[in-house]
């Protein structure tokens, strides 16, 4: 058994596709129209054959209250790995991304949390080199 797909609920799939590709820098893997919505996945440029991230419609009525409660407490929906949180923070802020938590050194990791403009908070995490 392997994990090949992860994802998040997004308010607007086309807006999310733009944010996750143009702003974050992921690459489209699949974009298949399925009636009202589409099956849209993105992958990392660093691992195009790796885990796909699904931009799933947030149409189900349970999604709204669920995500509202997470965002209220600042809880990220998922987390992406980066080599340098400071550099990513700088790059994304320059593109207009709003961070709810700037880079924070937590000992073994450095993390930051931003708003994906589609209803989710996303964490980026850098594992610090162990001395």
């Amino acid at each position: 058994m392997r994990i090949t797909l992860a994802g998040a609920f997004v308010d607007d799939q086309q807006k999310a596709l733009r944010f996750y590709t143009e702003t974050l820098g992921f690459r489209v893997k699949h974009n298949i129209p399925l009636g009202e919505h589409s099956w849209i996945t993105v992958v990392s440029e660093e691992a195009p054959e790796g885990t796909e991230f699904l931009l799933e419609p947030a149409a189900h009525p349970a999604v709204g209250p669920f995500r509202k409660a997470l965002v209220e407490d600042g809880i990220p929906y998922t987390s992406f790995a980066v080599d340098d949180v400071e550099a990513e923070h700088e790059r994304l802020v320059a593109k207009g991304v709003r961070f709810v938590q700037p880079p924070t050194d937590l000992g073994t990791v450095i993390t930051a949390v931003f708003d994906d403009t589609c209803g989710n908070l996303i964490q980026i995490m850098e594992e610090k080199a162990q001395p």
Partner: protein
Amino acid sequence: MRHVDVYRAIADRTRRAILDELVDRSGQSLFEICGRLTMKHGISSSRQAISQHLEVLEAAGLVRTRREGRSKLHWFVGAPLKAIGQRWPDSTDEDTSHSTEEDIEK
């Protein structure tokens, strides 16, 4: 909201650690506070428990919350502690060498 005595509010190690972290950076979410307590202080209480600690601190006037976007963030308010310092100034004993700030428990 009910009022909480400031002395009771700071009579707890976890709540003092929360204040330390909010002094380190203003405007934190519950998630960030929990992460800092776990990773920096080894305090692994549940999110719900930390949320209740924050309510006590807020009721004592030591923490203020504000909504930013759709998130609820927390700020430290030092005024109630300053009032304690004014009530009991440094010392009335000329020889203070036996007591230092280091004696204060974290």
